[in-house]
């Protein structure tokens, strides 16, 4: 078992979905444990508000863990539109309206800025994951964070089950077999 210290935390960019799952399951402490900084883009703030998580994200912004990137260059905006188009046309995408994918597309683009040194991007949406993967980016998601925490001995199988069932009861459509896989594979 490898226990990572707080000095070994990494910088990531995070889409709205994984952070909402963190808020639903009340596991923000694991964001602090593994990440020294989490970048989001301005367009995501509307999504947090829409999903009743405006207070939670603001609290992380106030403590300095989450940083909002507000200004994209014209070139980044163009690239984001192209990435949004690619997401909208992915076979696994259920929403073909291109502008609806701009928040995650902008995040994918800005996560590649050399100066912010992102190790990867947190994405749970399959179409966006597929596009980001094809662009050669490192991808993680909420279940990956839970799995890593489990490997660090921080969760029992029952605790993982309970956390994911909480998300499930709030509307996240995890299959029960997936919950069992994560609990059995990563819980102590």
């Amino acid at each position, binding site marked *: 078992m*490898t226990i*990572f*210290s707080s*000095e*070994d*935390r*990494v910088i990531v960019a995070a*889409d*709205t*979905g994984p952070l*909402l*799952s963190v*808020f*639903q399951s009340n596991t923000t402490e694991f964001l602090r444990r*593994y990440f020294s900084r989490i970048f989001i883009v301005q367009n995501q703030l509307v*999504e947090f508000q829409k*999903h*009743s*998580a405006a207070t*939670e994200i603001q609290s992380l912004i106030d403590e300095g863990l989450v940083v909002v990137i507000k200004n994209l260059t014209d070139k980044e905006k163009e690239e984001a539109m192209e990435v949004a188009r690619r997401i909208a046309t992915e076979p*696994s995408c*259920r929403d073909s309206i291109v502008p609806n994918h701009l928040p995650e597309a902008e995040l994918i683009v800005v996560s590649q800025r050399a100066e912010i040194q992102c*190790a*990867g991007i947190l994405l*749970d*949406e*399959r*179409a966006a*994951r597929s596009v980001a993967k094809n662009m050669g980016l*490192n*991808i*993680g*998601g909420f*279940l*990956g*964070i839970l*799995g*890593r925490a489990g*490997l660090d001995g921080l969760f029992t199988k029952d605790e993982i089950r309970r956390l994911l069932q909480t*998300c499930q009861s*709030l*509307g*996240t*459509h*995890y*299959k029960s077999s*997936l919950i069992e*896989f*994560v609990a059995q*594979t*990563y819980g102590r």
Partner: protein
Amino acid sequence: MPPITPHESDAEFITPEDVENDVAFFTEALLEKQIQRLVRELVRRSDIYIALRKLVTSGRFANEVEALAQAVQTLQSATGTEQEA
């Protein structure tokens, strides 16, 4: 206060393989950070840095990394900790 609603309508399509890949990414990224910190702390010790430089200039090792790797393996063998993980 209304409950926080999920963003991902297609979360049911996340597969065990996706989760394994995600965990592997986090593990690798954290490990890389950990190694960077260890190396930084190690070479900050001037006695170690000078010893490493001497080992390299002696011509027995190609570079500092080779010298360190050999040192760790020798120590592991000497203390009989190869089988422990």
